[in-house]
């Protein structure tokens, strides 16, 4: 019996119900729609990533789910309940990590977690949790004197101390150094293993690829793609190599299956993309073509697109506000 099933029994929760269901969500600020007809579902017990450029509507969406904002249109169900009308029931069951702030500057991690632990029926022991997020050495340091990454970890600890069923993490690893980021990833993995549903936003595609069971890419307040990271990245295979600049890629393409693409970007870096995955005949065709021309293909690699490639393809490369 998995620990996730155990958790379901313990909380009497219907495992089949989605953690979050959003349908046709609209939120306007003045004349601009921050969220414009967004629909997505986050499965119970899974880690769901909401990705999107700045201003795509990620934080607005999360804050509507947290009950901070009232939608202008559409339906939002969190653990099957209404985030505003059922707030009293939801608050103990849902953990929240805001994008920034929320903790009094003069209060220490130990005092803050002790406070939050007193709000809950069966909280995690504050000292154990401080240890877990690596804040034990600064347990008595005022919040304002913690580093950015330490502040983020305290905020994360505050989101989970009440042993919630569902946590919303708005950019949980922003401002963290690599060590803290990896520790946070491990903690999120353990949340998932314990049966907690996690909804997070992030700008780090590597983070989403590693952590998320499911990702939703949103832009201009609407869903542009959703699926497992594998589904999103696995549709195109890539073969990359380096060689002298200025090879005739058109001639190369003629030797490859139809629907392939080849480009040189930047100079001397060649990328060949094919639908699906790179297969042995394609590899043979490329190396044969190179051999005919006496070209040595350096650093030859076969890979699928990264989530970052997919993200940039879907949301464009222009800078956002």
């Amino acid at each position: 019996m998995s620990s996730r099933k155990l958790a379901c029994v313990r909380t009497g929760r219907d495992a089949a119900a989605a953690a979050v269901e959003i349908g046709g969500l609209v939120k306007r600020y003045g004349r601009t729609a921050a969220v414009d007809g967004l629909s997505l579902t986050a499965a119970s017990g899974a880690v769901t990533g909401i990705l999107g450029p700045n201003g795509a509507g990620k934080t607005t969406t999360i804050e509507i789910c947290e009950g901070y904002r009232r939608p202008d249109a559409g339906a939002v169900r969190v653990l099957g309940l209404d985030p505003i009308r059922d707030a009293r029931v939801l608050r103990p069951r849902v953990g929240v990590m805001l994008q920034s702030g929320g903790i009094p500057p003069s209060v220490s991690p130990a005092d803050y977690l002790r406070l939050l632990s007193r709000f809950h029926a069966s909280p995690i022991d504050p000292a154990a949790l401080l240890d877990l997020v690596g804040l034990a050495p600064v347990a008595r340091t005022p919040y304002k004197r913690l580093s950015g990454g330490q502040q983020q970890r305290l905020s994360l600890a505050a989101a989970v101390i009440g042993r919630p069923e569902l946590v919303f993490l708005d950019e949980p690893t922003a401002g963290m150094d690599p060590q803290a980021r990896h520790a946070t990833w491990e903690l999120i993995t353990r949340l998932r293993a314990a049966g907690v549903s996690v909804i997070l936003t992030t700008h780090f595609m590597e983070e989403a690829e590693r952590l998320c069971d499911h990702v939703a890419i949103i832009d201009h307040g609407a869903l542009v793609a959703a699926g497992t990271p594998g589904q999103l990245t696995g549709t195109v295979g890539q073969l990359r190599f380096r060689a002298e600049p200025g090879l005739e890629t058109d001639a190369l393409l003629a030797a490859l299956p139809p629907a392939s693409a080849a480009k040189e970007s930047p100079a001397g870096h060649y990328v060949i993309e094919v639908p699906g995955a790179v297969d042995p005949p394609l590899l043979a065709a490329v190396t044969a073509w190179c051999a005919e021309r006496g070209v040595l293909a350096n650093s030859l690699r076969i890979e699928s697109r990264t989530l970052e490639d997919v993200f940039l393809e879907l949301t464009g490369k222009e800078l956002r506000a």
Partner: protein
Amino acid sequence: MTAAADAAGAAPVFAPAPGAAPLYRMIAAQAGLELRTLLRNGEQLLLTLVIPLLLLAAFSLEPLVNFATGMSRADFLTPGIIALAVMSTAFTSQAIATGFERRYGVLKRLGATPLSRPGLITSKTATVVTVELLQGVLIIAVALGVGWRPSASPAAIVTAPLLIVLGTAAFSGLGLLMAGTLRAEATLAAANLVYIVLLGVGGVVFPLTRFPAAARPLLELLPTGALSTGLRAVLQHGIVLPVGNTVTLAVWALMAIALAMRLFRWE
């Protein structure tokens, strides 16, 4: 607790077990943290304890102001200093603390915890009352030391606290109204300015009788003037209940709390 322990079959540390604590425990925890934060903050202590006690001691012992009220200096000052203490805690200190809590997102974050907004307001009130009790003990001790001799009817045991409760409600409403509508820096400046002005014209150390006759009824309509005058009537003149001052404070309390409830913005 390690991942190995998780795998060994012990209940994982993060296994969901949600539930709110009893309301009284949440309120006690929140008020306790607020109280410790206040008592560690030098500026807040200056405002709520040092200034009232210094004014009481200095003006009682030295004839810095000619009160010309026919009362001893300590007898005149003590009710005014109690009014000042109530204002400093319920209004100035609470407005500044809450204004910065709002600015730092503390109120927003607390909104996502099981502590409800009425629970949070109750915590803040408990903090204010606790500080007032501490102020009361110290002020009475110093006042008796400098020769304060109250001359009150037995009913003062009820009516003096009643005035203080009404004053606390009025000042809290005004402080939260300010903190919930202005930027934190504006609240800091305005709350301190109001404190200084009402210290001057609220019958705290300067008798209202020294102001022009036309101004006096108006000054008694301000919450500080109503509280200091009312307390002086109860504590020094043996009046059971100064009706005008009591009504004034009740009206301020109702108006300020109603406005704060309507206009307070949590983020």
